[in-house]
């Protein structure tokens, strides 16, 4: 695929310009549609997806400036790269186009070599942006992905109040060694599907998966007023899902699995880490470490879900709380109160 076969829209009221631009772009391997003015251009853009638009400024019905204004207000179209092709006199026009979000500006008559370079670079930038969006949609709900698009993809952190959850399958390594590899992968896929459903359903975001372990955040990147309660609700749902899954496994003559969940709440630093080309959303801080320790501690006690004091504060309703006691975790000087959560049997 690489650089070929992109969908391009050439917008120009002048027939000679339309013919020349579309011919040149077709020779570069792209598929080109044309529009004679801004009104037709917007209609085409809303009909089907395009990768790039070449836009003339001076046009009857609706000029290029107005088209750019429409695009900037349209959530679906605001990321479409636009190269302005114009022979308007004066640098002020160029500045205005760039301010309105145009990616580049080419003076007419358009030079073939420059056209090829600018189109290539715009498409490459779009490819990177699409890749980033794809990456985000893999660990975020659509609401979160949309929020991130609106706020931009800037790397960098901020302080948030949130709940962090860790979860993994107990004794997974031994289990994996005792069965064929494709069965292990299938088990992991089912497990992740069930856990994602429960977490996303409660408003959380899975941001990391390692082997059979996962990390989820409630309350970031989007603020969640009841993030503690949401995390506990997700955990209970997860355990219930695993019980249903185990009933199926046992019926099929397979060993049941057990998962452990740890939740801690409080201040943490959340943001994107990585490079411009490849970034991931993550959280760091004591709250995160504590959640990981709580999850590990489920190996020591007969409970599946362990939470800290801060999470306990908001755990009301249909749950039974058992205080496990004060635990001094590895690497900590003071002890932490640990509580177990179970669903009340009705």
């Amino acid at each position, binding site marked *: 695929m690489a650089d070929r076969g992109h969908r391009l829209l050439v917008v120009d009221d002048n027939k*000679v310009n339309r013919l020349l631009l579309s011919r040149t772009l077709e020779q570069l391997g792209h598929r080109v549609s044309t529009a004679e003015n801004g009104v037709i251009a917007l209609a085409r853009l809303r009909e089907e997806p395009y990768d790039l638009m070449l836009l003339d400024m*001076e046009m009857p019905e609706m000029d290029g400036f107005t088209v750019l204004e429409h695009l900037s207000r349209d959530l679906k179209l605001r990321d479409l790269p636009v190269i302005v092709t114009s022979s308007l*006199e004066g640098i002020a026009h160029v500045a205005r186009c760039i301010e309105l979000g145009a990616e580049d500006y080419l003076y007419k008559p358009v*030079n*073939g070599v420059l056209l090829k370079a600018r189109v290539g670079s715009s498409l490459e930038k779009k490819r990177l942006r699409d890749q980033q969006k794809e990456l985000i949609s893999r660990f975020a709900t659509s609401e979160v992905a949309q929020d991130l698009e609106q706020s931009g993809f800037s790397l960098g952190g901020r302080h948030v109040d949130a709940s962090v959850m860790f979860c993994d399958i107990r004794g997974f390594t031994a289990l994996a060694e005792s069965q064929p590899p494709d069965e292990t992968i299938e088990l992991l896929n089912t497990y992740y599907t069930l856990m994602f459903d429960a977490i996303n359903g409660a408003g959380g975001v899975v941001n990391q998966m390692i082997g059979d372990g996962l990390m989820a955040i409630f309350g970031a990147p989007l603020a969640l007023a009841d993030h503690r309660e949401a995390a506990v609700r997700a955990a209970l749902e997860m355990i219930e899902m695993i019980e249903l899954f185990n009933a199926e496994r046992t019926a099929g003559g397979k060993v049941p699995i057990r998962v452990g969940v740890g939740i801690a709440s409080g201040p943490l630093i959340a943001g994107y880490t990585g490079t411009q080309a490849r970034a991931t959303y993550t959280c760091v801080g004591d709250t995160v470490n504590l959640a990981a320790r709580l999850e590990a501690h489920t190996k020591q006690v007969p409970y599946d879900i362990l939470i800290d004091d801060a999470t306990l504060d908001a755990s009301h309703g249909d749950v039974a709380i058992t205080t496990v006691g004060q635990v001094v975790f590895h690497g900590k000087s003071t002890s932490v109160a640990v509580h177990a959560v179970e669903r009340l049997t009705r």
Partner: protein
Amino acid sequence: MPEPTIDPATFAALGEMAGAEFVTELVDTFLEEAPRMLAEMREASAKRDAESFRRAAHSLKSNSNTFGAMALGEAAKSLELEGLEATSPAALDALDAAYARAAAALRALCDG
């Protein structure tokens, strides 16, 4: 030596970019469209429609420069910038004459 009606370097670059055969097609399109732009300027001038006048002059300038019709492009550009108010009937006649020369030269280039 007088300036050539069609700048050879610009015209050659256009051929390289789009292919000689396609340039002939482009010239044909221009020869169909340009008389319409000139007529639009006359009509806009009669109706005192400054916006249509400017837009037609702008379009004619843009196409002239694409083919390397420098004198025609310059004439159209000055009308675009000066606007309808400052344009005399003589200037429109001069533009028609510049177009006639450019059209003849473009036809000759495509046939030759």
